């Protein structure tokens, strides 16, 4: 993490108003646009912004962590994930209301943080694969059918596609398991 980013997070962590406002001015319009275009309302975007900010400060307070992008881009991605989480939890509420427990706020916020850490670990390791593996797995995880992948990547048969996915997935799993963060996150 760069010195500039550390200073920025330290200032945010101290609740320095100028830094909070600066971040709000830079990133909020993008978050607002994303949330409103994905079944959200204006108040939702505000809520997501504040939760994401608190999430990053709490993570930083626990231990400094690496960000492999600009802070604004990373912050926007955390907001997107929080909104994706929110939409999926609403879907779960509609379809499985009996299964949902009433989790206290701070437990839910703690869950959201470890979920983001898991997302960081998985996406970082996926990015470390070869371009071919990366593209193939990205489509595979989006449930693209094997016959579509076969045509797209010019493989001879679905069986070849399956073999290739198997190898790429094993490489990804290997990279994830080798990382120290995995042990902390595997039973969440």
């Amino acid at each position, binding site marked *: 993490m760069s010195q500039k980013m550390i200073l920025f997070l330290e200032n945010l*962590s101290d*609740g320095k*108003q100028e830094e*909070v*406002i600066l971040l709000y001015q830079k990133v909020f319009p993008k978050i607002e646009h994303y949330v409103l*275009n*994905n*079944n959200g309302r204006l108040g939702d975007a*505000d809520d997501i*912004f*504040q939760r994401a*900010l*608190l999430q990053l*400060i*709490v993570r930083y*307070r*626990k231990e400094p962590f690496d960000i492999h992008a600009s802070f604004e881009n990373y912050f926007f991605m955390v907001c997107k*994930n929080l909104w*994706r*989480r929110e*939409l*999926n*939890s609403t*879907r779960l509420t509609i*379809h499985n209301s009996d299964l949902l427990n009433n989790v206290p706020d*701070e*437990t839910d*916020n*703690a*869950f959201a*943080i*470890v*979920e983001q*850490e*898991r*997302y960081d670990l*998985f*996406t970082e390791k*996926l990015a470390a694969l070869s371009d071919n593996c990366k593209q193939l*797995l*990205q489509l595979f*995880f*989006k*449930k*693209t*059918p094997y016959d*579509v992948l076969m045509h797209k990547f010019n493989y001879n048969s679905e069986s070849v596609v*399956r*073999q290739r996915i*198997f190898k790429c*997935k*094993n490489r*990804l*799993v290997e990279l*994830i*398991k080798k990382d120290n963060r995995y042990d*902390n996150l*595997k*039973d*969440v």
Partner: protein
Amino acid sequence: MKIEDDILIEKFLKNTLSDEERTSFMKRMASDTSFKEHVILEQQLLEVLGDNYWSFATNEKNARVVAYKKILESEETQQLKTTIAETLEQHKQQASQSSVKHAFSLSFILKVAAVFLIFCISVFWYFSSNTTIDYAAASKRAWDKNIGLDFALRSTSADTVKVSLEKALYYYSHQEYDSVLSTLKPYRDANHQYKDILLMRALAHYRLHYTKTAMTTLDSVAIHAPKIAKWYRGLMYLDQHKIEEASLFLELPSEANQEIKLKE
């Protein structure tokens, strides 16, 4: 990990194992810790790296969750939460006050502009007998809700129909509407998810500009799911600028930011 195990895990995650296979799979999960860990990791990868899902944490006892919860509950963090909320609230108020001041300084220009605007509106009303509202944005948001297309969440069956529906939905989201129709061609009305099949067919026909066929197919959808059929019939009429017909099925917005609702 062998490829046979990989295939088995994929079938488990797609819910396509037979009852017998599932029983044996669950037994192995209970006895083989490393296999169980691998299955959970594969499921998390699918949920995290796919677009449509999210991988929720559930273990409140995990050391990391406990540590974060402690920091979140601390007085210091609670105070910070309040500070952030207040800072943003103040900022928004200041921004709005500053825009008010700006508005006052521009008051004269605005007065002139208002007179001009009134003139333009009068001319517009004179030449146009009907005012029209642009429903395009609201319609797009309504289509994006993908009402009735949550097959994966609704169905727990492990048969090929579900797989075909998910495949058809994939083609639909990638605008390959002919492939939607060919994927669902074999299915007849004896099927338990026939309503979903009909809906996918209706939407694919509509996107291929066979509007009449789409509407007829929606008639059949209406037998099983009248609200969903009404919703899409309304949206199709709206796309064709048939506002009166669309209003029979939908509550249309009177302002730009309002959402389209189903007429009850």
